[in-house]
């Protein structure tokens, strides 16, 4: 009898205490600075989010962020390494022979350039941002940008042409 009375009162006390403990936790969190980044207003591609009035603890996009691929055709030597590395074949390169020039390579060594890409298409709708194309590139011509806004109503606009043959009309986008 005494035992069960004790348990009864203990249960009531325990409930009250634990509820109060829980309420304390949520109350503390209520006054925490919200972590939400108001995305279109706060441009997370910029370095300084505080300039947009963001007060939370999150930082901008990290340096290794994998956005859309970007290609600089001027330093691309059309070696096709990226095209071959891509597991889902979403890169297409066509090239033409040019007079030999040298390009500064990724590791600092000079790289000979004897070919120039006349067509460099990447289907960003198919790309899975694995980075396998970025790694083998000897010149760093292909790299990830921080751009990620790809919403579109036609799939073809996601096929990006980084090189177009000079003097020729812009080719119709083809799904690779």
């Amino acid at each position, binding site marked *: 009898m005494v035992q069960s009375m004790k348990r009864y009162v203990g249960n*009531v006390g325990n409930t009250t205490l634990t*509820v109060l403990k*829980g*309420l304390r936790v*949520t109350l503390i*969190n*209520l006054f*925490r600075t*919200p972590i*939400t980044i108001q995305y279109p207003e706060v441009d997370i591609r910029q370095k300084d989010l505080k300039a947009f009035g963001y007060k939370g603890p999150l930082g901008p996009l990290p340096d290794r962020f994998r956005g859309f691929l970007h290609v600089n055709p001027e330093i691309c030597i059309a070696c096709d390494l990226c095209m071959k590395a891509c597991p889902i074949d979403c890169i297409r390169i066509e090239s033409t022979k040019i007079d030999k020039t040298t390009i500064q390579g990724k590791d600092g060594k000079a790289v000979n350039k004897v070919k120039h890409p006349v067509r460099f298409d990447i289907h960003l709708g198919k790309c899975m941002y694995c980075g396998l194309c970025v790694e083998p590139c000897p010149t760093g011509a292909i790299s990830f940008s921080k751009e990620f806004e790809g919403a579109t109503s036609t799939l073809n606009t996601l096929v990006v042409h980084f090189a177009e043959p000079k003097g020729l009309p812009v080719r119709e986008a083809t799904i690779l």
Partner: protein
Amino acid sequence: MEIFLQEGLVLLKAALWAVALSLVMALVAGFLTYLERKVAGHMQARLGPNRVGPYGLLQFVADGVKLFLKEDLIPSDADAPLFRFGPYLVFVGSFAVFAVLPFGERIVATDLNIGLFYVLAITSIETVGLLMAGWASNNKWALLGAMRSAAQSISYEIPVGVSFLIPIVLAGSMSLQGIIHAQAGGFGLLGWNVFHNPFSLAAFFVGCTAMVAEINRTPFDLPEAESELVAGYNTEYSGMRFAFFFLAEYANIFVISMIAAAIFLGGWQLPSPFKDILPFGLVGSFVLLAKAAVLVFIVLWLRWTLPRVRVDQLMEVCWKYLTPMALVCLMGTAVWMWAFPGRIFFGLFGTA
């Protein structure tokens, strides 16, 4: 002729009150949905709604318009008349309480002499509505939710009723205004029923817990338990009918807070110098609303703190804990009134 005129005036007055109260209910319930999302957001380090209107204040208007424009769906196997009728019954059960809610010393639609009894009785209609909705949906989730809601409301009616008895005993009146009048004295604070004696203090917490359970709020939200029953009794509802459920649910939070503030926390009682600053006892109204707002916040706060209890725990809390405790409080209060007649604030002060 004269009698018709009088009748007409009475009817007109009733109609005006009904319109005003339904506006109040819609606004309060709408604002509460906004507030709940805002509180939930900030407790989870988010922002909550902040796109529609300043600070997202018009979010509920947008939601309402959206629900209003939705397709009116009735499942083909549902019992259509009952399915249609259920939400209105739930809505009426909640709305009818507004008729006796004292918004101020002189602002009340009707001060029934059995006010609290009426509140207890009319809110039971909601259970019928929920049961109807769940049954008519012809859906296992809905039926289970409705059954739970019936079991829950019937059980929790008892601790709520018994803890309502304590202010009734203290005031010797069932009218909400009468109970508030009885809490006069002590600078509008010491006279509160909750401070009358230790038993009434306990009864306040017992009653509030039971009321939270009766309106199916978390941690007692088993009838809609999202993780188990999809959405419980309103699984099959959408559009306007769903909006009625929603409206009633949020209006109920306001209703229980107002009632608790009125019968335990002194209602619109104020120290006499402040009473007549504004006409119609408006200062008192603000005080009452502020008390209710605090209670509303606590209800929201609880929801985002506590996990849902199990069905057996739910029944255990009601029958093994709240009901006996409420009964003890009732008897204790009665004995206290006999031992320390005419004294307030734990028997420390005499009534003025």
